[in-house]
Structure formats: structure tokens, C-alpha cells
């Protein structure tokens, strides 16, 4: 479907409690459709999408857009699959943390998910975008926008209210995350992120020279 010709292979991972709409969210993002079926994800799945990224950096020089191959990993929220899904955390570069605006538990569990990320992701402060999903169900909403914003602020992460049904903010949240990742990569080897940056750069050449290669093993101890 896709040719191997792109500049960056970026891996995102969607996580959050079971039933918050991770699969639907990603389906909406990649295909622009909504599937109302209520099916649990088996372990882990993925979707892909090609985008063009134009950095709007301070120099204003956008130049040629970067061709990005996005790999969106969809994890199962089921507890039984925790060990499996957390194993995938360390291979993702950015995280879409979803909760359900109509389900308070899923919001309360956001804290746990973040601490899980801090343990299992490639670094202690990975790029996360918090998404309050199911914003179309306004009448059933139990989590106030203000509460969610406060929580996001506390962790210093972006927050969007999204809807996989009508597509509100779905692309916006992913784009924000992509922007964060690209910015992080452009940072000239900031000491803390050296590992992540280093490997990503290497992958660029791999991407150009043919088939994509896994970006795994970002835990390389230097």
C-alpha cells in the first residue's frame, strides 16, 4: 500500500482504560469513519497513516514538508493484557492517553496510566497528549473540562476533548503530538533525550534506503 519512501517513521501508541474508545479513535483518525460496534481489542493492533509535516519553527523557514509515516499502535485496555501492552510502551515515541468523558473511573485512572508510562516508556517524561473522548455525548458527560485541564496542566501535557464519532479534535490531537515529537527530535541532542533523538535520526536514513526498520530498542544504554 505504502511505498517505503518517507522521511520519518513515527510510532504512536494509544492507551487508556478499556472501553474509552481507543480503537474507534484511531479508526476515525486513519479512515475518517466511526464503527459503533463494541468489540474488545485483542492484545495489540495497529493502524497506519501518511502525513506531511511542515514545521513552523521560529525561523519561519518551512521548506519542504517532511513525509511522515505514522504507525498508530492500539492497545487492549483489558487488565489481562497489561504485561503485553506495557511491553510496547518503550517502543513508542508519543502517547495518546485517552479517557472517557462519560466515565469518571477512566478519568481517575489517568494518573495510574501516567505512572505506568513513566516506568515503561523510553524516558521518564515522554510526550503525551491527553484526550477526553466521547465529547459528542454531552448529556452523559461526568468529567468537567476544567478538571481535565487541571490534571493535564499538573502533568504538563496537552489536553483535547475529542469525539471518535464526529471526529472532533481527533486529527488535532495527533498533530499536536506529532509536533511535540518533531520538536523533540530537532532539539540538538538535549542530554536527557539523547537516546530517542539518536535512534530517530538513524532511522531516517534507513527509511530512505528502502524498507522501514523497527525503531525498537530505544533503550540502548549509551
Amino acid at each position, binding site marked *: *500500500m*505504502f511505498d*517505503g519512501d518517507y522521511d520519518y517513521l513515527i510510532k504512536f501508541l494509544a492507551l487508556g*482504560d*478499556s*472501553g474509552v474508545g481507543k*480503537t474507534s479513535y484511531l*479508526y476515525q483518525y*486513519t*479512515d475518517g*469513519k466511526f*464503527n459503533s*460496534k*463494541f*468489540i*474488545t*481489542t*485483542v*492484545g*495489540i*493492533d*495497529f*493502524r*497506519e497513516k501518511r502525513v506531511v509535516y511542515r514545521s513552523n519553527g521560529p525561523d519561519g523557514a518551512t521548506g519542504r514538508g517532511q513525509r511522515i*509515516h505514522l*504507525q498508530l499502535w*492500539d492497545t487492549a*485496555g*483489558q*487488565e*489481562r*493484557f497489561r*504485561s*503485553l501492552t506495557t*511491553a*510496547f510502551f518503550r*517502543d513508542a515515541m508519543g502517547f495518546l492517553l485517552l479517557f472517557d468523558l462519560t*466515565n469518571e*473511573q*477512566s478519568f*481517575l*485512572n489517568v494518573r*495510574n496510566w501516567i505512572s505506568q508510562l513513566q516506568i515503561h516508556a523510553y524516558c521518564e517524561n515522554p510526550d503525551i497528549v491527553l484526550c477526553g473522548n466521547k465529547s459528542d455525548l454531552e448529556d452523559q458527560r461526568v468529567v468537567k473540562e476544567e478538571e481535565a485541564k487541571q490534571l493535564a496542566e499538573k502533568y504538563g501535557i496537552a489536553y483535547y476533548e475529542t469525539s471518535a464519532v464526529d471526529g472532533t479534535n481527533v486529527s488535532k490531537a495527533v498533530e499536536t503530538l506529532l509536533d511535540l515529537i518533531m520538536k523533540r527530535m530537532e532539539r540538538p541532542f538535549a542530554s536527557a533525550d539523547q537516546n530517542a533523538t539518536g535512534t530517530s535520526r538513524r532511522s531516517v536514513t534507513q527509511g530512505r534506503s*528502502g*524498507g*522501514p*526498520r*523497527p525503531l*525498537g*530498542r530505544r533503550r540502548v544504554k549509551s
Partner: protein
Amino acid sequence: MQETLQRYILERHRFRKMSLRLPKDFSLKSDLGKIARSVSMMSGEQMAASNRTQSPILSEKPIKCGFLKKQKTFVKTWQQKYFSLIEQKLYYFKDNIDNKYQGCIVLPGCQVKEVYSSDDGKFIFEVTPGISTDQNRSASETHVLMASTQAEMEEWVKAIRKAAGVVSGAVFGRSLADTITYEKKYGRHSVPILMEKCVDFIRENGLNEEGIFRLPGQDNLVKQLREDFDAGERPSFSSDTDVHTVASLFKLYLRELPEPVVPWCQYDAFLGCEEKICINEDKGHEELIRQIRLLPKENYNLLCFLCRFFFEVQKNSIENKMNAENLAMVMGVNLLKSKSEEPAAMMQSTSIIQKLMTLMIIHHEKFFPKANDLQNEPVPQKNLQSFVEWEATEESVLPGVVQAKNVCDSNASSTSENGLATLEEGSLLKDDPESWKSIARKRTQTMPNAKPFVAGKQLNNIADELFSDDFWMTSTPSNGYRDSSFSSPGHKRTLSEDLKCNRKSTYDNVPCSQGDSGKSPVSSPTNLCASNYGVAQHQQQSGTYLKNCLNTSGLENKTCKNSATLPNLEDLKVTDKKDEMNQREECIQSLQKENKELKEQLEIEKKERMDLEIAFQNAKRARDDAENRNKLLQQKIEEYARAMSASGCRP
């Protein structure tokens, strides 16, 4: 005065320790006074022992020590104290220099509870003496302590619980057979009380809840409920408890079982049923029924109970959106688990598990017929002698001792159960109509008559029998799971494709514009993931098999060719010779193949033999242990009887 009181308490504990095997009708309360008095007339050695504990010169190495904050009783302020946990007492000091202790909490029988504070920086836990002592007021008050970090608190709670004899995992993490036996004292229960309570609650409040059993509850609340159950409180859920929290607790219990509801030894056989069902539905069902019958009694009862309940749940699927497939998806993986947590294996088995589970839920009447219920009733108690004696005094006794013994008992009996179960398999294979009945009975024997090793050997044979039909069509049973990707040799498929074949994909029911993305060999991330996550290793394992497959098919091709060319050769007059040669070649090839097969079989059997030998050694050790303990306790009882009669003589 204080001193005598303290001594009194100590002596009481001493006595409780000894009353382990008191008769059932023995009333501890009324006789306590007598015991306490009699203790002063006991042998000098014991007196010396009690004297030593009375004056806690801190020569013993503390189990754990460190600073904690303690809340004052009347003015609720916090005061920093130095705590030292020595044997079964928690002493506290003004600081870590002063060696004169300010207070001492006698731990045995104490309840330890974490208190959830809304304040982030406070990690509070309580130590409450379990048995209220009327004579000693200070002993019944709750001690509220605070640690500075979550981890520190957890460590303290764990250590204190251990010292208090409250083994964490009194319900969670305990084996099913153990729990059932333990809970006999609360009346007849064919499944753990926790399961019953959860199911009752969900039946009452959650049947129409959207995503019941799929959506998780609140982690902290689940944790707290778990602790309550472990502390033996058997809480009832208040009506405002979130059903999803109860459902999460329910799932947690199943996951925490030391051995899943479908035991490790039957896991492969269960998964094998799915394939058989694909080939021949009726035969597959039969096989599944047979496997279900082979389950230990407790496991059968629980699985039956769950499937019947899930059937109820899925009846409301219009409201709760949880149809049988969905329920099977979220629950199956908690009931059927492989020993390995290897990601690829886990994902591949998941779809198979889902199918089996769906079947068991929908056709629960077929797989768990009501007729079996009666035969499965708890057996008369005389078969359970060794447990009965324990039940009588368990509650009042130092729980640590009891639990240690219980664990020991269960080790011995569970191994014996396994041994028996496997032996039984042999008889079942003959389709003896009576065998079901006899299993239910025999399984409850307490000590193994049959050596597990012998039983294991038979298991091997049975496994061979079971798999002989399609032994080489699928991966070997020891591989842990079936791997359909290798059943079509030569055709390389990605993991996601395999999974999509096996399972109802999340995206299957939607027009899939990217359906073929997985096929692109270059950009298949699942392949990438596979190489990242030790699938390589698995592929190596199955690699041998693949090679075999290729070899076999190659051979077949050759033979085909040979037979096809034969007629032409007839014209030439060398047919006979060629024929002979062909035959010989074939013969050699088939012999080589057989040889290879046998070699591999030998390897597998060798490995299994090793495993079983180890298991046998373990069982033996456990049995010896149990016997020793029994002897020890018998001695204690005799001592106690002597003491009793001595006190009786001198009123």
C-alpha cells in the same frame, strides 16, 4: 500490675498456639481462664520461656525498624517514633538511641489496614488488635501510623502482617481448592465466597450496565476491596459500589489464582479442542466435554458457575452490549492462561480462547449439564479428616501457624489430586460411563496413593494418543500453543494476518480500506514487532516443525511424481528394477522420517520426564513436611492433654 497483664496476654497467646487441634465443640472463651491459670503450673522450661519473652531485651535482630509517625490517642497529633519489629511484637521508642521502649504492640491476631488519605503526602495505616481483651484496655486501641512514602508504608504493612500471621493473599492468590476447603466453615460453598458475592452483586446491579466486565473499575477501590477480603473481612458491597469495580475485583481474583481455573496441565489440551472443532464439530465438542470432565472438582464447579452466569449476562446484551463473544474475550483470558507471558503466544492463543469460551457460555447446558451438579456435591466430611480438625479452631488460633499448615496440606493434596486426575484420564479414555462419578469421589482423597511420576508417564501416553491423529499436522503440544501460521508451509504470513484469520478483528466488520496494509512485506509493522519481542525465539522453536512440514510435503511430492511416471517406465523393460528401487527409496525415506519423528518425540518425552521428576520431588518434600508437622502437632496435643489433666487434678 502492668507487668502481670502483659504476661497474661503473652500466656494467652502461647496457649492459643497450642490449642490448634482442639475438638470442634471446645469453647475457647469459657476455657481460657482455666488455661491461663493452669499455665503457671506448667513445667519449668516453659516458664523460663515465657519469662524471656516478657523482658524484651532487644538482643533479637529486628525484622524491620525505622521511623514512623504515630498518632496520639486523644489529641490527634503526629509524633515521630522509632519502631522496631521483633518477632511478633512491634516496639516503639522515643528515638533510635534510647533503648527503653515506650510501648509495645503485640501483633498476633492484629488487623493491619492501609488507610486511604486524600492528602497526597500522607501514607497512613492502622494496626488494630484482633481480639479485644477486656482486662487490658490499652491493647484494644487502634494504632494509627504514618509512613513518609507509599513504598515504605507497603513494606511496613507487609512486614507487620507477616508477623501478625495474616498472610497477605488469604483469599487472593490462594489456590482454589484451598479456599474452598477453608470456607467450608461458613457453610457449603461450591465456589469461593468472593465469587458468589461478586456475582450476586452484579446480578443485582449490573446486568444492564454497558460494558460490564469490560470496563475497569477504580484501581484504588479494587485494591482496597482486595485487602478487605484478604484480611478475612468478607465485606459485603455497599449498594453505591460501582459495578465495574466489583467486576474488576472479580477478574482480579481469577487472574491472581496461583493456577488458573483451567490448570496449566490442561491448557494445551483445551486449546487443542478448538482445532478439533474446526475439523469436526461434534468430535471437537466431545473432546472439550472430556477435557472439562477432567478438571479438578473445584475448578469444574467454578467454570460451570461462571459460564452459567455469563449466559445470564449476555441475555441482556442489547442493554449491556456484552454478547457472548465479547464476554468470552474479556473473561476467557483470565480463565485460560498459558504459563508463558510471551506476547506473540499470548495474542495467538487469545482468539482460540475466545472461541472456546464463547462455546462454553452459549452451550453451557451441553458442557456443564445440570445432571453433573449432584455428583459434584461436596463429599462427606470424613474424607477430609485432616482439614476438619483445623476448622474447629482456625479462627481463634494464631493465623500464621494455621496458614502455614494449610499451605502445606494443600501442597500435598493438590499434587495428589493432580496425580489422581491424570491417572483417571486413562480410564476415561475408554469412555467408561461411570468414570465421571468415580472421579468426583476419588479426587478428594487427601494423600497420594499413586506416585505422580507414574501418573505423569501415563499422561504422556495419553497426550500421544490424543495428538496422534494430527500430531504432525500441528505444532507439538509442548509448544504451548497452536500456530496456524505454520500449517501452510512455504506461505509467509504476517502475525496480523494470522490473527485476522483466527479472530474477529476489531476492524473486520467495517469496510477496510487498508485491509491489505498488513500484506505489504516491507511495511508490515507486526513483523517488526515480532522481531522485537522474542517471537524470533518462538519461530525458532516452531522452525524445526516447519522444516519437518516442508520435508514431508517434499516427500509426498516425490512419491506423487514417482507414481505418475511409472506407467511410462513400463514400456521400458526395466520397470521391475526401477520399481524396486523406488520402493526402497520410499522405504528409506519413510524410515528416515519415522526416525526423525521418533527422535523428536523422545526429546519431548525426556523433557516432560524431567519436569515430572522435579514435580514429584517437590510433592515428596511437601508430604514429608506435612508429616513432620503432623507429628509435631500430635506431640503438642499430648502435652496439652497432660497439662489439662494436671490442672484438672489440682483444682
